[in-house]
């Protein structure tokens, strides 16, 4: 079994004058705020008025605007300020632990610890008083440690754990992450998995790979998971080719999540929508013209009410349990999906007829489906012929049976080869010196993927 460690570089020295390239935040951009090392994940849109509630403090997100993605901030008092970790502190910590050698040389343990709440002599009021006198988070933490009767008797690891726990409460850290397919999927899987059909990040990555998603391709997508799949595909297209977000019937599915990606206009233009019936039919249907008219009419009304809603959404959003920016908009969207297409800066325009014609002429390079509520086989049977010869496809479903049925039928009809049903498996580990072990909780359920390659129909 192989393991890998993935990390993001937060070098504090600026690496010369590189062009922005989307690596520095701007007013109005979406960010993913990672509070206290993954304890809490919040999407936010940066504006001078935007705020984040941490504990019982409401801090402004203004200091985050114009800083590079990946910057770390610490809440000191009531405001967020840039935090630059000191390498030495961590190094000595590790040194001590290494010098202690094996765990059995450590002589301390918890045999004398009694949990009667008398260990800490500093009270809540004392801490408040310190704060009023301007004490920073770190000073409070040191004071708590100094006033703890049991601290010295703890093992080195236990002391480190205690210190980290106090840090999270009195000097919380906020990591400002760039919203990309990976971070968005992880955050949604943790907080609102039902909105993305319980699609786990490793499953999403397999879908993108197995369907050979790459630049200069025309990719057909049936996305009923709020646009996460569409966004991930568009990201890999990088402003070339097209992703056709198609749908059964006449109402497009929600594509809320696409907005969070901070896509440039170039990439947004590549995200088009089209009803499946249009792709399958041989002539233009009158319904299309009506739909275009609807979008235009509704658009004007929507833009006027946008801004006030944007600001209130930001301030409302941040508490854990209550609705947040994303879910509020999501709820609206279910009723009138067509409005969203207009608000979302050009992503999701109706595909023009000549593009549809070229797709019919050349076929799509690949097909991806993430439709949790759908019966898979009838859908695949209809859209697979739209794929070019030898084009790969990847279908995600939460449950095995619909995919098994589909696989069986594809084999019978000889429509595809290389059929494979996969179940992705992902285990996260805590990796620390002498303390490496799997995390206590693990997702056992990332769904299933059916993949294969379309073969040339024998009718030639």
């Amino acid at each position: 079994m192989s393991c890998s460690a993935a990390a993001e570089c937060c070098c504090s020295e600026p690496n010369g004058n590189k062009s922005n390239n989307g690596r520095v935040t701007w007013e109005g951009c979406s960010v993913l705020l990672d509070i206290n090392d993954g304890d809490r994940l919040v999407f936010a849109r940066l504006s001078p008025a935007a705020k984040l509630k941490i504990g019982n403090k409401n801090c402004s997100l203004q200091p985050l605007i114009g800083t590079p993605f990946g910057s770390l901030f610490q809440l000191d008092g009531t405001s967020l300020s840039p935090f630059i970790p000191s390498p030495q502190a961590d190094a000595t910590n590790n040194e001590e632990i290494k010098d202690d050698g094996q765990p059995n040389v450590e002589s301390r343990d918890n045999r004398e610890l009694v949990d009667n709440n008398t260990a800490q002599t500093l009270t809540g009021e004392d801490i408040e008083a310190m704060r009023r006198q301007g004490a920073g988070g770190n000073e409070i933490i040191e004071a708590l440690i100094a006033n703890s009767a049991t601290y010295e008797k703890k093992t080195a690891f236990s002391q480190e754990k205690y210190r980290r726990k106090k840090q999270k409460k009195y000097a919380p850290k906020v990591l400002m992450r760039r919203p990309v397919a990976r971070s968005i999927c992880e955050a949604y899987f943790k907080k609102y998995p039902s909105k993305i059909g319980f699609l786990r990040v490793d499953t999403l990555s397999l879908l993108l790979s197995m369907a050979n998603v790459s630049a200069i391709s025309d990719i057909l997508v049936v996305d009923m998971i709020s646009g996460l799949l569409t966004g991930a595909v568009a990201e890999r297209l990088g402003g070339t080719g097209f992703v056709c977000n198609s749908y059964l019937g006449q109402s497009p599915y929600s594509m809320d999540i696409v907005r969070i990606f901070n896509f440039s206009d170039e990439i947004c233009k590549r995200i088009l929508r089209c009803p499946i019936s249009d792709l399958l039919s041989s002539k233009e249907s009158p319904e299309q013209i009506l739909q275009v008219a609807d979008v235009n009419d509704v658009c004007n009304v929507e833009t006027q009410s946008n801004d006030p809603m944007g600001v209130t959404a930001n301030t409302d959003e941040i508490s854990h349990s209550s609705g947040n920016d994303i879910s509020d908009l999501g709820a609206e969207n279910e009723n009138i999906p067509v409005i969203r297409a207009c608000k979302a800066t050009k992503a999701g325009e109706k595909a023009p007829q000549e593009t549809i014609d070229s797709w019919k002429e050349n076929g799509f390079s690949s097909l991806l489906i993430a439709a949790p509520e759908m019966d898979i086989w009838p859908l695949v049977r209809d859209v697979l012929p739209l794929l070019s010869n030898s084009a790969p496809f990847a279908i995600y479903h939460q449950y095995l049976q619909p995919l098994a049925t589909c696989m069986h039928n594809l084999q019978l009809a000889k429509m595809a080869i290389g059929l494979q049903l996969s179940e992705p498996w992902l285990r996260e580990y805590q990796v620390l010196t002498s303390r490496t072990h799997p995390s206590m909780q693990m997702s056992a359920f990332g769904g299933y993927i059916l993949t294969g390659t379309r073969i040339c129909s024998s009718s030639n």
Partner: protein
Amino acid sequence: IIVPCDFVERFLRTFKMLAVDPAKKLSFNRLISNGDLVIVYERHDNMKAVTVSESTVLQNRFGVFKDSEWIGKPFGSKVFSNKGGFVYLLAPTPELWTLVLSHRTQILYIADISFVIMYLEVVPGCLVLETGTGSGSLTTSLARAVAPTGHVHTFDFHEQRAGSARDDFERTGLSSLISVRARDIQGEGFPSEFAGLADAVFLDLPQPWLAIPSAAKMLKQDGTLCSFSPCVEQVQRSCETLQNSFT
């Protein structure tokens, strides 16, 4: 230098792995040509890469297949041998390539490859540094992820294997996206010419912690690093070294 017309035409029409030129995209109208790379599919666990030419033949348990009979057929076609057996001819993709390439070293497979590319946040236009190249399995997928405007610089300390990888990338039509260099990254670090320019760095080394400080210098702010190790002890040691300049 004047190049003969028909040579240029043949070169442009050759189908390799990625449609770096939109005209070479996979499509209903695209037919197999002389010089194309195809994946011969016998069974899901039995496939082979063949560069089609007028004169070569393929022999397997199903009989003898003449490559020349494949020319002009669409990809995805079923083709028959002299004995009536058949195989399918598929267009190459990085996934299929990983399953058919010749192993000079242990390779990464799809599950890990897809995960690495997701976590490295590789998109078109990225500059990626990779070491060791090995048999080029991951490299091929990285090239797909950065195409058409990005680039992959891959390093391997074994001169001969670096050469074989280079040959493979020629064969799959990816040489414009991948540069292979023989260099010992563990010992010497990455070349300073890339400092501050890399969007992503991937390490598949026996002692990655030796290369991590150099990797940190290569990365842009918010750039990503991934280190792949078969043993948890290696992962532990790598993580300790990571603490200084990574989140």
